[in-house]
């Protein structure tokens, strides 16, 4: 498998590209949660001072 094939989305109805959607969803959710923690961390820093 190549990068080209990984990002080649094609029409939405073709399921081979579910691979890309799955990997993207994982990183969006995990990254989003870490970003949310970071945001709250900074907010508590501000509350402290």
């Amino acid at each position, binding site marked *: *498998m190549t990068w080209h094939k990984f990002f080649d989305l094609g029409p939405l109805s073709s399921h081979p590209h*579910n691979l890309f959607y*799955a990997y993207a969803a*994982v990183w969006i959710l995990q990254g989003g949660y*870490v970003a949310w923690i970071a945001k709250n961390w900074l907010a508590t820093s501000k509350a402290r001072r």
Partner: protein
Amino acid sequence: MQLETPSRSVVPRVAAAAWFAVALVVLAIGFRQAIFLVPTEATMGNVQRIFYYHLPHAILGMVFPYVNCAASLAFLYWRRRDPWKALGADALAVASAEVTVIFVTIGLLTGSLWAKPAWGIWWAWDARTTTYLILWMLYVSYLIARKFSGGNDEGHTLAAVISVFAAIDVPISFMAIRWWRTQHPAPVFGGDGSLDASFYPAVWWNIAGWALWGFLVLGLRYSLERRRQRIQEEAALEAIEASLEITQ
């Protein structure tokens, strides 16, 4: 009570940063293995590679509930004995519940994206999927109940009790759903027990990577909750001191 001043020590921060770097490196290796190096599966083609991200999340989604249960039991034990330790256990409980929900959500989502090309349907009510849905519901309802019952000690106690109920419920619903599904025809699906050895590198690197990531996120969320608790305690202490000054 003498509260320690917020730790300015750099050791935890450096450790967290190092852990983060290691997790990212392992995940990068896992990604490379899963996408480029491991041979393409014969019947499913490239879509089968979803499995390498799906499996670690599904496994870890079953691990964090135990952390949640253990932390809740520790909270109930320390509640009357050592309030500050009890608060720590509560912070671990809320962190592990949130991480559980994240991992199980991803497990369900990637499973669904895999099911469509594999079985032709997004959602088959088979034993494993249904069990994970129940698991997801239990911990979402735990988090909602936490929110409803307020952030005080009473709310923490109620949440800990709910967590014990949830932990007991998981194996029972697992058995019930197994029996339910073996009685009715279910879509036939390949057992992932029989995995060819050539796929192992992708599986193991990804399990290791996501475990490192998961426990790091758990630690970060825990320290965030701890930080909030410390700020609250300080504010309460200052309020008490201020009220003492007025009465003098």
